[in-house]
């Protein structure tokens, strides 16, 4: 009850704070925040990306002739693949996982009560490959419970978890496990997802987004020392660390954000391994993208509500900046929304001068700066990521869309997801919600 009351108060605060600032100062002050927050976050991500590359990444060997990383003691790696209605994708996913150059692996496919032919495909594959193990869940349970089943059955303490439609690169598993082996305080490692679906503008814009926003954010957070979330599509875990925090939570809509916070609050570190490539399918329609990003935004808000009261102990101080960044990003969305409302009202009825918002888009110079900084950000990410994908520079042409798409999606998903989570009575079991996975896989 107390949590619900606090959540409601925070929601009221998010709406009223920008309005209060406009009343006390001017509407332009809110707009300054709206323009400067993306500008200076970009500066942070660019510097974090460059530092990570300069200090670490550039020294790491990479290329066609590079041998797979050597894992001391040749430990077994368990690759967990939860599948829900993945009949179309299961074979290529499982075969890519089995094609690792590091040979001491087992692949565990967890069929989470699928209603298509996933069960039959997996049974067939199990008869072809002795290193593949298959768990059928009697009923659909959701990704978190499916992953738990895989972790319980795994014969290794090193778990590499991928989605049922994700293709692991040939050395990805070994790259993911190496930090777990070499660093005792690392509890999880997040990999480098690369987008396969580039048929539409929406698909192509995400190629730029994954390189220039998500890739740089991961590097920056690694430099800072704490990571907001592992990528659910490709992440490795130490099972002992998972056991300490009670594994994945079945009632959190994004199990990846939740497990990242649980591990770090128990002082387990999370590493980013850009060489662990994983080829993924992403939505290629606006509707699909909206559904996916709304789910991500809800996941962030759920983590906020779960942790908002217990985070204030001194022992959790390293998580405060991440929490603050989430709060500021949420405040940014609400500030922009209030600006839009003030702008529209100002066009209809007279208001005090201080409340007038003159324009909704950055004025010439600030707009210029925002655009240029976005391009610089993309150029830096291309420079860093060009070694992982040939011809990625060609996606520069499409990148003009990504600042608008990224920040507008952030704005609207936050405005919908945050109140939804804050006003919800009780969390229920999270089940699979798969958005479209490319135009080629959409049913007619």
């Amino acid at each position, binding site marked *: 009850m107390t949590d619900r009351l606090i959540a409601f108060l925070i929601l009221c605060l998010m709406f009223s704070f920008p309005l209060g600032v406009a009343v006390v100062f001017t509407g332009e002050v809110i707009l300054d925040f709206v323009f400067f927050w993306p500008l*200076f976050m970009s*500066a942070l991500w660019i*510097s974090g990306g460059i*530092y990570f590359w300069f*200090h670490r990444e550039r020294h790491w060997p990479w290329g066609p002739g590079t041998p797979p990383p050597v894992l001391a003691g040749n430990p077994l790696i368990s690759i967990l693949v939860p599948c829900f209605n993945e009949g179309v994708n299961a074979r*290529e996913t499982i075969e890519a996982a089995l094609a690792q150059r590091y040979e001491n692996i087992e692949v565990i496919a967890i069929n989470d009560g699928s209603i298509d032919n996933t069960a039959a495909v997996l*049974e067939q594959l*199990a008869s072809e490959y*002795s290193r593949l*193990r*298959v*768990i*059928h*869940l*009697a*009923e659909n*349970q*959701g990704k*978190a*419970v499916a992953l*738990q*089943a895989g972790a*319980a*059955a*795994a014969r*290794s*303490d*090193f778990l590499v978890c991928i989605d049922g439609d994700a*293709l692991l690169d040939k050395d990805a598993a070994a790259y993911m496990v190496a930090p777990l*082996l070499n660093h*005792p*305080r690392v509890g999880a490692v997040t990999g480098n997802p690369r987008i*396969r*679906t*580039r*048929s*539409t*503008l929406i*698909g192509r814009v995400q190629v730029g987004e994954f390189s220039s926003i998500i890739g740089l954010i991961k590097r920056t957070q690694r*430099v*800072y*020392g704490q990571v907001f979330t592992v990528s659910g599509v490709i992440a490795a875990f130490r*099972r*002992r660390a998972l*056991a300490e925090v009670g*594994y994945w939570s*079945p009632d959190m809509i994004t199990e990846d954000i939740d497990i990242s916070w649980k591990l770090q609050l128990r002082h387990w570190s999370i590493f980013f391994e850009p060489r662990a490539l994983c080829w993924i399918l992403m939505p290629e329609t606006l509707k699909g993208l909206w559904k996916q990003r709304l789910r991500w935004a809800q996941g962030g808000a759920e983590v906020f509500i779960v942790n908002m009261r217990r985070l204030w102990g001194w022992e959790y101080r390293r998580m405060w900046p991440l929490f603050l960044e989430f709060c500021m990003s949420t405040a940014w969305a609400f500030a922009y929304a209030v600006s839009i409302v003030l702008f529209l009202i100002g066009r209809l009825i007279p208001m005090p001068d201080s409340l007038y918002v003159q324009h909704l888009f950055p004025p*010439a*110079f600030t*707009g*210029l*700066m925002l*655009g*240029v900084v976005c391009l610089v950000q993309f150029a830096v990410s291309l420079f860093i990521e060009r070694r992982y994908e040939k011809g990625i520079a060609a996606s520069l*042409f*499409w990148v*003009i*869309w990504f600042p608008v798409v990224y920040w507008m999606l952030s704005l609207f998903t936050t405005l919908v997801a945050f109140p939804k989570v804050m006003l919800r009575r009780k969390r229920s*079991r999270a089940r699979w919600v798969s958005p479209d996975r490319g135009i*080629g896989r959409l049913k007619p």
Partner: protein
Amino acid sequence: MIQPLIFTEQRLLPRTLDSLLTIVAWLGFGWLIFSGLINAIEHDPLMGTRPFYTTLLTLRIYLLVAGLIVLALVGWAKYNQLRFRIERRKRRPGLEQHEVAASFNITSELALMMSQAQVFTLAHYDTGAIDRVWMAKILANVQSE
């Protein structure tokens, strides 16, 4: 069915439309830059301070703030490198079978059965906790032991 690694649009019309739209967006961006620069440079000196100089001042402030951000991040990273240069933790071994069983609230026999099976079906309670297992096939290397 072998799929391509990257899916791209093969039809000419959608590709052309996307390209045209994107070219228009680039032209818009170019105009934004052009008008910003023109506004900063072209200005009647009799109207007071040239926007070029105020623009330069604003740019300096932006660079200063960006510099402070870089300093804070790199300073923090360097501090952590010094602080953790000697690893004080030791790697703990992987979970034993009984620890795995305890962590999932299941019996050791059930945990063992799950680890030895190649294909099996698993039932859960409503809470999501593991209930029981139906074994279909055990691993070949376990069979031969």
